[in-house]
């Protein structure tokens, strides 16, 4: 039976109350509210007026752009008035993101990635200053914005706004649409910081009636060039591994649709497309469609006509003019600039790509891999979305079908049904810096789970999703392994001189090699002595600028000429 006096629009009423409080508070300041625009000096006043204790707040912390001004303002609230906020945000990048908890303003956190703040986060968790709900993948967190983690207040970041509150996010749209949509349509309040107020926006990325307040920030928002890899730092070993990837995987499976990780290993692959891959006659046969940020390292391949389309999670500083001038390849607005969208690109990477290839810090004997290390709670961002077989996928492609066939070959029962599989490749040197082995008996993730009292160890890519492990010693094709023992020896067989690698069963490894489960450079017909940096289509940042015809404008920290 329905209670007769139940009120069904409490959220809308709450929003109305909060907006009324804001109007009153800002009215008293003498500057007031001009349309939706709030003076920067009144930000703390505005936040105090609209927030209530225990609110779920989404503070736009992206992989790249940061609502840094709003983050700072939030830390200035009086914890006696506003406390126990529940923060939901994809990335904890700024010190302010944690100051909130230290200051007693927030107490609970749901997030995806905390790269630069991971050590401090771990300390604060063990000191009981932060209660973590869960660590998500990006797509998973966005999904929960629409289920049970819907923000009451969202603090977002855009390039420009007009008087109506329409937002122009510029090339770095990133998370903004997902956040605003979840908030605006569920009784929430959206506050945006912008770098400029314009009469006419170049384009509208977020409609004004989804936005409640706009603040012109005193300084442009913080944004990091996270995907720029200086080719000067690519080693000969990485060139060798890139050659093996191209010949042993890309060509082998005919991979046309893919996502790359952000390390130097994959940058090396990008830079070998117009040289080594071209020499193998692979142009047009691989690497035409990408879910990828505008990686500067891909410029030579794009210029050489390798790439048909790239959809991006976010942009990359310095790539603005280049992207605009290559609108056949990138997704751009009528204004010419990139339209990125992290949620859409994560979905694209998960469902529409045949391969993910990226690096990791540790791989165990089951092929589970993780970047988690003791003393740091970092999360994985989007890698698990890319690096997981899309179980819901139903369309076929040659690469997907071939991987699926290898996994199912000779198996009956439930595995007899024809089905494809995503290629999920971990590319690692057997030793990282300071001779840290990439192959381990036990992932540090277990220790971290114990330290931080997590319910499950933080695994980036589960072993049963990993199809290949590529090291300088060779490629292990886990699709072809039929027993746990084979799988273990296949992994040991490419683990080089790490303790895991040295403990291999040599006879069994040779047997796996005979069966093509392990393939060495020489098995692929690759002469290691050819693996020199001269194969790279660009050997430094300046070469990338040259390749772009001067359109790429790298940030000054990369301009060593």
């Amino acid at each position, binding site marked *: 039976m329905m209670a007769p006096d139940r009120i069904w629009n409490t959220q809308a009423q709450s929003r109305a109350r909060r907006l009324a409080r804001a109007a009153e508070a800002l009215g008293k300041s003498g500057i007031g509210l001009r349309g939706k625009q709030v003076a920067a000096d009144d930000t703390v006043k505005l936040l105090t007026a609209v927030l209530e204790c225990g609110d779920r707040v989404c503070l736009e912390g992206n992989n790249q752009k940061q609502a840094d001004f709003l983050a700072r303002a939030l830390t200035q609230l009086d914890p006696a008035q506003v406390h126990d906020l529940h923060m939901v945000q994809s990335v904890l990048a700024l010190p302010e993101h944690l100051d909130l908890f230290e200051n007693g303003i927030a107490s609970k956190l749901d997030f995806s990635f905390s790269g630069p703040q991971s050590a401090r986060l771990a300390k604060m968790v063990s000191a009981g200053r932060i209660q973590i709900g869960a660590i998500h993948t990006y797509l998973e967190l966005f999904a929960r914005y629409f289920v049970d983690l819907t923000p009451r207040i969202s603090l977002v970041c855009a390039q420009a706004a007009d008087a109506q509150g329409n937002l122009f996010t510029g090339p770095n749209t990133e998370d903004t649409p997902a956040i605003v949509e979840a908030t605006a349509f569920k009784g929430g309040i959206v506050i945006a910081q912008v770098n400029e107020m314009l009469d006419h926006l170049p384009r509208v990325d977020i409609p004004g009636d989804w936005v409640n307040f706009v603040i012109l920030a005193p300084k442009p928002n913080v944004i990091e060039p996270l995907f720029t890899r200086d080719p000067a730092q690519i080693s000969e*070993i990485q060139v060798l591994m890139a050659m093996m990837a191209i010949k042993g995987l890309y060509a082998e499976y005919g991979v046309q649709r893919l996502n790359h990780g952000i390390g130097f290993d994959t940058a090396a692959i990008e830079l070998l497309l117009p040289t080594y891959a071209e020499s193998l006659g692979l142009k047009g046969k691989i690497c035409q469609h990408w879910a990828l940020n505008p990686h500067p390292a891909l410029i030579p391949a794009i210029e050489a006509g390798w790439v048909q389309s790239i959809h991006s999670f976010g942009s990359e500083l310095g790539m603005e003019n280049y992207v605009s001038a290559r609108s056949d390849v990138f997704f751009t607005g009528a204004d010419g600039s990139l339209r990125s969208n992290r949620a859409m690109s994560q979905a694209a990477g998960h469902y529409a790509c045949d391969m993910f290839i990226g690096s990791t810090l540790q791989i165990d004997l089951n092929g589970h891999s993780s970047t988690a290390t003791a003393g740091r709670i970092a999360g994985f961002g989007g890698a698990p979305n890319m690096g997981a077989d899309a179980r819901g996928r139903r369309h076929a492609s040659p690469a997907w079908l071939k991987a699926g066939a290898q996994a199912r070959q000779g198996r009956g029962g439930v595995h007899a049904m024809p089905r494809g599989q995503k290629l999920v490749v971990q590319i690692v040197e*057997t*030793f990282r*810096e300071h*001779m840290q082995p990439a192959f381990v008996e036990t992932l540090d993730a277990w220790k971290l789970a114990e330290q931080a009292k997590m319910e499950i160890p933080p695994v980036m890519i589960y072993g049963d999703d990993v199809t290949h492990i590529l090291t300088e*010693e060779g490629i292990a094709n886990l699709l072809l392994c039929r027993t746990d023992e084979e799988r273990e020896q296949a992994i040991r067989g490419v683990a080089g001189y790490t303790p895991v690698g*040295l403990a291999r069963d040599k006879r069994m490894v040779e047997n796996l090699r005979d069966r093509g489960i392990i393939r060495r450079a020489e098995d692929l017909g690759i002469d*290691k002595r050819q*693996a020199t940096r001269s194969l790279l289509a660009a050997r430094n940042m300046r070469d990338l600028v040259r390749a772009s015809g001067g359109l790429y404008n790298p940030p000054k920290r990369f301009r060593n000429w």
Partner: protein
Amino acid sequence: MEHLKFDFAGEHAPQNFKAILVGVVGSGNLEVLMEPGADPAHCTISITTSARGFGPIWEAVAQNFHSQHQLAGVAISINDMGATPAVVSLRLDQAAASLSFTAGPAL
């Protein structure tokens, strides 16, 4: 810093060669000096490395190199600044590749 020395009995003696140097003693890199050795039937590998405690790995790398090339009458000296085994193997192979044999394995 650590000094290591390995000695293997080998089969293939390169013909009258002069000292060969490959690589550079830089961070994560090493230099490999290959010279005619005193013992015509052996290959020695002497290593000075900045990193301590990796003896077993060096031994495995050296052994692997030797089992592939079976050099004799060769003295190899290495100065290492924290190179990974992959880089060490690469430099050893590069040095061996510049040897010539009148009879012996095709490298």
